[in-house]
């Protein structure tokens, strides 16, 4: 296997370098950026789920004091040169994505016009003055009816897709003989509601165009500075080297900020028509109405078992709601649900089939663990199977979960698992929980009429997926003239602490004291290209880039030190921001002296030795996937009179390889886990039958707060991955495993009442309804 970097800082709970500025209110988020004469944008949005736009009268708005411009589709849309996204590539046929609604508004919140004014207050006043002549049309509000509505009533979201189906895919057909002959077959319909990333900082950007120089500067709330730069250049048809994207702090993304959306296109296009910078800061209603949706899958899952409960085959057949304007192209990303469905289990036969359907809702966008439904539906079904076969869910999983000694292992859908041991995280979680103890407690509680339950969920997760532009990451490390070290990486941190981990890794790579290392991120003018903070890749990929650039710089430092100390390079050690002779550490030269010599006395260097004290490298992932894995275990109590679910314990045992910084790892797990808890119990982006969004404020869209979440207990298994340092990604896992763990705990608690939740979220009202039905 690969050697892991035994470092002074890597693996330690190093305090974050980001924190002092963020704790004192001195971070720089996009809304904190102001430019001379800056103007403010606000969108006119459709109140109809679907309506023909017969005309737009902006005269009253334009006459309003302080209003500078009102743009409509005719002004902006024709200016688009190219609008493809790197994560999909330019050769894949894309779904429609006009900047402003063209001819027809296709969801409530669809941007129809763009008002530009001297400040946001005036812009909002003017939005109310824009007269749009709508002819309401029948809409597709319920994605499960999308195909029927197209066929029966001709209600179609996009003319180019007359059946409302964007696409789909089927692997090998289900092995029906196995299902027919198996000792046990279980089947369930699992419906997952629509919910969304909901970062506390909404989307936004400031765009400044300088016509004379042809330069475009973009301050953005983004996870992908370099790809936003490339996208902007393509969109406007200007050279990328004339585009500079700057992001210092971004207030959360969780996928929402990995791909530029329609509003971003509008602001980029509009700024080019304005003499000064243009700022757009999305408000919360806009964010909940139009920043994209996630999950929302309806499917049927089946599993066949033998007498002992060994899995023989599994099948998943599902449909995902992609709304009106999915970003990016949704058909391929949805395939992941089918391909990862076998999960961390021995599953000889597995099949999947799916469709993605358009509706008159915002549109599918990336969200932490986009394929989560595979784990949700599989883990719920496993518990149903266990109950059906009279087994404990723990026993059923124990008998089927993959062990380290079985690696490498190819899943029935062709996924090449390796460097991972699902059985280890599972057994660790069972141990931390004290499974037997809980079952005893549960029997006693039931005797007193209390309903408590336990839920498990295990998954295997592809991190640092090395496809397309995600396969490499760059880093530049420079020893400045002072001997201090700066690490330049793409960054795109939205809270993933990459500033801190990069400093830890660089300090170790060069033997520098951590105080002597800084990092510059998020400015495309000075950082090498990188694919940004997405796909649980920042840790492993950036570690690789830092390691490779560090090795080159280390050699340069060593060479200069050896000459200075008159010894062989092989005698030189680096440590404590010094270079010293291994046998005689007192013979040393500081990094500061080395830098002084290189920058200020280069002629003192031996002939032929370059004065270079910096290195740039681009790391390529060694494998298509770096497999991480975790098991979640959750206990809860259900108040069967009100339907209230109280989570009592929560355990995550996870393997992300060696941890660069355990605080960061646990922080990522906790944040993801609580988002998944929200998805299980609280968060629900509801549309009514007419396609009106009913959760467009924080009053109606229920984020978990400190009172709804339990203390999370962590267990760590550190099986090195294939890449540098053996590091694996950790960004998404928590959000994948927690939803099914919570639902399984609720189902375990309510099993004595014959209640099984398969429709999310498990709201109190929904639970009470199920309990009443079961009683009848």
């Amino acid at each position, binding site marked *: 296997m690969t050697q892991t970097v035994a470092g002074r800082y890597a693996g330690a709970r190093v305090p974050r370098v980001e924190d002092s500025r963020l704790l004192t209110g001195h971070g720089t988020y996009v809304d904190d950026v102001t430019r001379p004469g800056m103007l403010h944008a606000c969108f006119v949005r459709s*109140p109809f789920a679907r309506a023909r736009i017969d005309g737009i009268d902006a005269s009253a708005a334009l006459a309003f004091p302080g209003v500078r411009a009102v743009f409509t589709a005719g002004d902006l849309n024709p200016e688009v040169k190219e609008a493809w996204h790197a994560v999909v590539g330019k050769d894949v046929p894309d779904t429609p994505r006009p900047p402003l609604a063209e001819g027809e508004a296709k969801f409530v919140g669809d941007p129809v016009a763009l008002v530009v004014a001297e400040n946001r207050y005036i812009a909002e006043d003017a939005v109310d003055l824009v007269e749009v002549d709508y002819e*309401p049309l029948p809409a597709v509000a319920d994605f499960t009816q999308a195909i029927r509505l197209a066929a029966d009533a001709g209600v179609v979201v996009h003319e180019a897709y007359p059946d409302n189906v964007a696409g789909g895919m089927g692997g090998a057909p289900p092995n029906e003989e196995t299902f027919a002959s198996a000792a046990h077959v279980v089947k369930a319909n699992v419906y997952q509601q629509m919910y969304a990333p909901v970062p506390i900082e909404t989307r936004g950007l400031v765009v400044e165009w300088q016509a004379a120089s042809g330069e475009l500067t973009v301050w953005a709330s983004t996870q992908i500075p370099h790809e936003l730069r490339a996208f902007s250049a393509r969109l406007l048809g200007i050279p990328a080297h004339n585009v500079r994207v700057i992001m210092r702090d971004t207030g959360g993304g969780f996928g929402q900020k990995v791909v530029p959306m329609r509003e971003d296109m509008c602001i980029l296009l509009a700024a080019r028509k304005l003499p000064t910078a243009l700022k757009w800061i999305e408000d919360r209603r806009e964010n909940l109405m139009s920043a994209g949706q996630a999950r929302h899958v309806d499917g049927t899952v089946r599993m066949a078992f033998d007498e002992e409960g060994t899995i023989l085959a599994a099948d998943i057949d599902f449909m995902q709601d992609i709304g009106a304007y999915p970003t990016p192209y949704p058909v391929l990303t949805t395939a992941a649900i089918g391909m990862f469905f076998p999960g961390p289990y021995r599953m000889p036969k597995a099949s999947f089939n799916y469709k993605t359907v358009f509706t008159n809702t915002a549109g599918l966008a990336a969200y932490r663990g986009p394929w989560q439904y595979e784990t949700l539906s599989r883990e719920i079904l496993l518990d149903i199977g266990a109950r059906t076969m009279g087994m404990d869910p723990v026993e059923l999983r124990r008998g089927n979960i993959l062990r380290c000694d079985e690696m490498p292992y190819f899943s029935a859908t062709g996924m090449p698992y390796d460097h991972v041991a699902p059985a280890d995280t599972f057994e660790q979680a069972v141990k931390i929980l004290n499974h037997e103890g809980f079952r005893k407690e549960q029997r006693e509680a039931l005797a007193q009429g209390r309903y408590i339950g336990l839920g498990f969920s295990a998954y295997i997760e592809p991190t640092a997926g090395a496809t397309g532009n995600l396969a490499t990451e760059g880093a530049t490390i420079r020893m400045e003239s002072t001997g201090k070290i700066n690490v330049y990486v793409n960054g795109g941190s939205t809270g993933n602490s990459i500033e801190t981990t990069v400093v830890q890794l660089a300090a170790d790579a060069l033997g520098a004291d951590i105080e002597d290392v800084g990092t510059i991120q998020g400015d495309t003018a000075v950082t090498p290209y990188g694919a940004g903070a997405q796909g649980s890749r920042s840790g492993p990929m950036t570690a690789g880039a830092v390691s490779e650039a560090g090795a080159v710089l280390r050699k340069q430092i060593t060479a200069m030190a050896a000459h200075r100390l008159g010894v062989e390079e092989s005698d030189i050690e680096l440590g404590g921001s010094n270079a010293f002779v291994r046998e005689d550490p007192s013979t040393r030269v500081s990094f500061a002296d080395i830098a002084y010599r290189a920058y200020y006395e280069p002629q003192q260097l031996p002939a032929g030795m370059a004065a270079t004290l910096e290195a740039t490298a681009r790391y390529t992932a060694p494998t298509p996937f770096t497999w991480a894995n975790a098991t979640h275990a959750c206990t809860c109590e259900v108040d069967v009179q009100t339907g209230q679910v109280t989570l009592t314990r929560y355990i995550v045992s996870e393997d992300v390889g060696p941890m660069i910084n355990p605080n960061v790892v646990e922080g990522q797990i906790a944040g993801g886990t609580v988002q998944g808890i929200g998805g299980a119990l609280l968060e629900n982006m509801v549309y009514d*039958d007419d396609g009106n969004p*009913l*959760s467009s*404020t924080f*009053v109606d869209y229920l984020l978990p707060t400190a009172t709804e979440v339990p203390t999370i207990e962590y267990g760590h298994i550190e099986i090195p991955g294939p890449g540098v340092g053996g590091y694996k990604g950790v960004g998404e896992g928590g959000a994948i495993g927690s939803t099914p763990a919570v639902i399984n705990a609720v189902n375990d608690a309510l099993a004595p009442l014959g209640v099984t939740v398969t429709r999310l979220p498990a709201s109190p*009202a929904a639970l009470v309804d199920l309990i009443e039905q079961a009683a009848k």
Partner: protein
Amino acid sequence: MEFVNEFRVPVPINQAWEVLTDVERVVPAIPGAQLLSVDGDNFTGTVKVKVGPITMQYKGNASFEDKDSSAHRAVIRADGKETRGQGNASAVVTAELKDEGETTSCVLTTDLTISGKAAQFGRGILSDVATKLIGQFAERLEADLVAPPSSETPTESPRTLSAAPQSESGASLDLLGVVALPIAKRVLPVAGALAAGLAIGYLLGRRR
């Protein structure tokens, strides 16, 4: 969303029909309604509905779909646009009078479609609100019908029998609800459209 509201007026059917199709007498009875213009087949009006701090004003026009004076049945389609904001409301109101001798029952069937903020915050108590508004309408109309006011006004005061489901008609309607809270636990503006429909509807009645 459909609402059925019924009320009685203590007059014979022909008298009721006359009054109910008399713009000048009906409009003042509609809560918050105001006639803007009467232009051949086209009538415009506004309806302003206030609920606590919330005001929703719709400016509407209406088209007349059916009026059968023998069956005493009128169907009106009304569309209203928010005078502030981008919201819309449209209603198809069917008014049917039933002869009950000395009294006449009026059944109003209202098919309401709302868009904009009103629809996003306010579905929860729409039927409650519609019922309330029609109740007010009925009271005022009755007062008008029994004018000149005599000391022995009818003992049976108008009752509003709301046939509208108290949102118990299953999950779909529950989803139309809005969660309680500081913003707009309950927003009435939707009722504006209903009233608008009525207003304009009865204005139309005048045309014959």
